[in-house]
């Protein structure tokens, strides 16, 4: 929905409307006009990541009004944005094939798409139920596995449904039954929320995190590395966006759930010659071993370092020894050059998920690059360090 926060607010017209509706409709019409423009056609087709989050109170009624009034053709372009901003990133091109002069039938198809892809639902696995299921029963179609999966609908405190946007990220702290959702668009700005998971309930209502993250007057960080452990949620590196520019970060923050407070530890380099590299999309894992608290950080992406117009994927394995009492992290980089075999796999793909199992780290998924042991496709260049 191309719904611009802070639109003019004055009067409500008869029938369904919202403050600033005329302004929004006009803007939708104008941007829609440019969708077939030879130069500015991209203006009407952007993934408007920050748009759907606000004025949710009008969202449902808005959709209802659209579908009740099949003559409201010019809303169709707005709907595409709603769908496109769902966490599933529904292919916009698929919807573009719908004729703007759509028939009722086509509108129903779009409505169906919204029902499928525009959702405030999240599925979580209940670890206690999972423990009761034997390993051999864990095949995909087994109903026992399904019984361990709970479906929740997420709401903001004022019962506005949560529609995560492209920049939103979450992590589940199963030990404390908490879901941390970062960068949800709420009341005109990116806000972080914590949801107390209550198994057996259908809805979860979020609360804004106690303190601003990462600190007051700091930029909002996107594409951060997330992991949890020792009653803390770690936010590693990321990218800050300030209107026109984006900057990679090398800062680390953690939220102490016991103290309900954010901390930014002081970082000391174990080897002063090995500097840290600011980047985003890293994979990280909190690791505890014989009383040591360690934060591992793998890989990452960067828009800052360009070689012949290509950006860098970093194949870095580094870790931090953490002293929570002194709030200090000591940075170490693993020198992969000392390994005996020359072709170390592309470890890991960025945007992976990592967990500690015993004294090992297990890494799941991530972004894959076809040619990549050393070099990625297209506009990325792999940087071995």
């Amino acid at each position, binding site marked *: 929905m191309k719904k*611009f*926060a*802070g*639109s*003019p*607010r*004055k*009067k409500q017209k008869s029938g369904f409307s919202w*403050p*600033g*509706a*005329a*302004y929004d*409709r*006009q*803007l939708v*019409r*104008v*941007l829609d*006009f*440019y969708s077939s*423009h*030879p*130069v*500015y056609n*991209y*203006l009407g087709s*952007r993934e*408007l990541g*920050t*748009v759907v989050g606000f004025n949710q109170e009008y969202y449902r009624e808005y959709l209802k009004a659209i579908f009740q009034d099949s003559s409201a053709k010019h809303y169709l372009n707005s709907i595409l944005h709603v769908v496109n901003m769902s966490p599933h990133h529904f292919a916009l091109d698929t919807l573009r094939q719908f004729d703007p002069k759509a028939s009722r039938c086509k509108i129903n198809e779009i409505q169906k798409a919204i029902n499928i892809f525009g959702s405030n639902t999240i599925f979580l696995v209940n670890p206690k139920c999972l423990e009761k299921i034997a390993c051999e029963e864990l095949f995909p179609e087994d109903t026992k596995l399904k019984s361990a999966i709970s479906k929740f609908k997420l709401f903001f405190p004022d019962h506005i449904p949560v529609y995560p946007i492209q920049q939103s990220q979450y992590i589940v702290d199963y030990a404390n039954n908490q879901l941390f959702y970062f960068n949800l668009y709420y009341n*005109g700005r990116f806000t972080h929320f914590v949801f107390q998971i209550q198994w057996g309930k259908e809805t979860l209502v979020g609360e804004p995190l106690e303190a601003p993250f990462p600190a007051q007057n700091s930029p909002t960080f996107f594409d951060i590395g997330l992991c949890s452990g020792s009653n803390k949620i770690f936010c590693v590196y990321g990218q800050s966006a*300030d*209107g*026109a*520019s984006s900057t990679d970060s090398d800062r680390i923050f953690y939220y102490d759930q016991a103290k309900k407070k954010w901390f930014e530890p002081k970082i000391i380099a174990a080897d002063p010659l090995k500097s840290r590299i600011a980047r985003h999309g890293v994979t990280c894992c909190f690791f505890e071993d014989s009383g040591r608290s360690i934060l591992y950080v793998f890989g990452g992406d960067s828009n800052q370092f360009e070689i012949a117009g290509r950006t860098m994927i970093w194949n870095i394995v580094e870790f931090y020894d953490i002293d929570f009492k002194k709030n200090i992290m000591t940075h170490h980089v693993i020198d992969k050059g000392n390994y005996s075999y020359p072709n170390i796999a592309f470890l890991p793909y960025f945007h992976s998920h990592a967990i500690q199992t015993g004294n090992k780290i297990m890494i799941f998924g991530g972004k894959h690059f076809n040619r990549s042991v050393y070099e990625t496709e297209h506009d990325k260049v792999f940087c071995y360090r």
Partner: protein
Amino acid sequence: MHQLRDSTTLHEIEECLKRDHPLLYKDFAEMHPFSLTVTLWEIIQKIIDGLHPSCYCLASHSYSHYLNLKLSPAALGVSYYYFRTLYTTSQVADKPRKSEAPKITYLSFTGFYSEIDIDVLYQNADNVQVIMIYDSSTGGPSFNGTEPDRDARASESQRRDFRISNNILLLPLDCSDGRVSSKAIKELFEQVVYRAIRSFRPELLVVNHSFNFHPEGNFPFALKASAWQKILHNLCLIVSYKILIFPHKLVAEDEYALPNNFDSSESLHLCEFRSKALPVYSRPWNSGYFEDCFVKSLEALSGKI
């Protein structure tokens, strides 16, 4: 007008203007507007050449002929820059072709639609991007294809602006629900304007802003000085601080010290503009707000924020 068209030398043109169209002569050929245009040309050239990083002009000028009612000196300055760059006789060998001239983005943020700015800007160059953010009730082409264009030259056909150049980006806003807030303006810039400028990659951004969007009174736009500063800061980042800001505001008819001929216009659109838009958009500057915007603009232009 025929005599003016038949004039071939500068002297003939000047004489013809002085004799037959004294207000046009006053608008273009008298010392004040002439020196303003030439000064703007020089500043534009210096910014494009990298001799100046950015500039905020504390100059004001309004034109007296009804044809120039909506004309901005900044548009005239840009047009003159292209004229000097492309068509004057000196250094012929180094002259760029029309499509190779330096790219300039002209951001019109006065609140009203100005067809003459568009015409003047594209008179001498193709490489100019016009982004015009305005109250849709002040005129402009129709975007739904059913209503006629409201334009001083509307009789010539619909959507003429879009035939002039593909680089024209018109953003008419419906202010009938109430005033457009700082937040909405910021979002419009973030989601549309920045992207359009970034994509065009201009060597200079000329901002023609009226700086009378203070929150008092019944005005269609309300832009906080702090919001303006953030917008300008982002614009600076996009164009590497190559910005020329020219504050330009319409003047109320009763504020004209010298005579004008606004009554002579036969254009229906201009008559409507005079009666409805001019009283609104010619409202006086609020000195406190203007000062605040000026200081914040300087902070942004000098990279202090």
